């Protein structure tokens, strides 16, 4: 059993399970599934300053979500230790691997390319752009758009909200631009 669930999970197992989180949170307390709101709660809790956007009771509206996010970290620890995948390589398409090799990616072991996503990699130009700039854009864009992958692509689309569809189209315009125009210049 342990061996079985330690294999990477196929999309038709993982996707429906993620989908169930939406009704679970609604039934538990009418909560909306959306992770990036926690970035706002964290700012409101630590550095609210005089910024109106952070003037609210973060414990009242966000404590549950911060605890939920703590659970994500704990779940990831369990998944990468007790349930660790015996094969260290992510089984990506051979075409993707070939494209990434052509760009200059040489490390394929693990969940992320270690040549960029490591403390040594952080000190390189790709490391700074992908980790520091990438992280900044994720935080800025998620709040500007009012949600991220969980809030818009999953919760929003599941509730047939048109603004979420626009946001997801935006995610792809940005993502394709970074993939085809920026990464080739960077790597």
């Amino acid at each position, binding site marked *: 059993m342990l061996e079985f669930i330690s294999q*990477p999970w196929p*999309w038709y197992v993982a*996707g429906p399970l*993620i*989908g169930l*989180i*939406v*009704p*679970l949170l609604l*039934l*538990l*307390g*009418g*909560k909306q599934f959306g*992770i990036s709101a926690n*970035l706002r709660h964290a700012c409101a809790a630590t550095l609210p300053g005089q910024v109106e*956007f952070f003037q609210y009771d973060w414990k009242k509206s966000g*404590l*549950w979500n911060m*605890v*939920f996010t*703590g*659970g*994500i*970290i704990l*779940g*990831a*620890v369990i998944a990468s230790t007790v349930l660790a995948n015996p094969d260290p390589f992510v089984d990506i398409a051979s*075409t993707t691997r070939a494209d990434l090799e052509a760009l200059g990616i040489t490390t394929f072991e693990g*969940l*992320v390319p270690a040549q960029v*996503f490591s*403390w040594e*990699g952080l000190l390189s130009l790709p490391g700074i752009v*992908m980790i520091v700039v*990438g*992280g900044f854009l994720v*935080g*800025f*864009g*998620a*709040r*500007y758009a*009012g949600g*991220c*992958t*969980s809030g818009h*692509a*999953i*919760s929003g689309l599941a*509730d047939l*909200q048109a*603004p979420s569809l626009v946001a997801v189209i*935006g995610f*792809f*315009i*940005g*993502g*394709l631009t*970074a993939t085809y125009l920026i990464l080739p210049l960077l790597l």
Partner: protein
Amino acid sequence: MAQSTPSTAPAARTDQRLGALVLYMLVGVFFGIILIKSEVVSWFRIQEMFRFQAFHMYGIIGSAIVVAAASVQLIKRFNITDRDGQPIVIPPKKWEGVGTRYWLGGIIFGLGWALLGACPGPIFALFGAGITVIIVALLSALAGTWAYAYLRPKLPH
């Protein structure tokens, strides 16, 4: 006015009871395990998705939407209440003009998503999986959130 009541306004209902928090944490643990075991936290998988070279990510996001949508419809149709007997209300996201904030915010988020190979949930999951350098991305994302909040009165929405 969207400026005073953004669609991101935190939900009104409070829930700070310890028992409830434990349940939210367990759902988070469940989500964290799925994020790692399905490899959606992998930069490689995000590249594969944006290059349209495998069905994996589309299958996950697509089937998650179908299951979530069916559940939401059931909750609405049968007026199912939450654990405390409160009605479940999903506030609609506000739309103004051409939806500038959704276009621009979405594009900016997408640029970051493809560069970093992780959206907010996976940032936390990668940290749990031992990719400690991702803490720098988290701090940057907090800086980005702060920058948005500061510039918000000047940005078109």
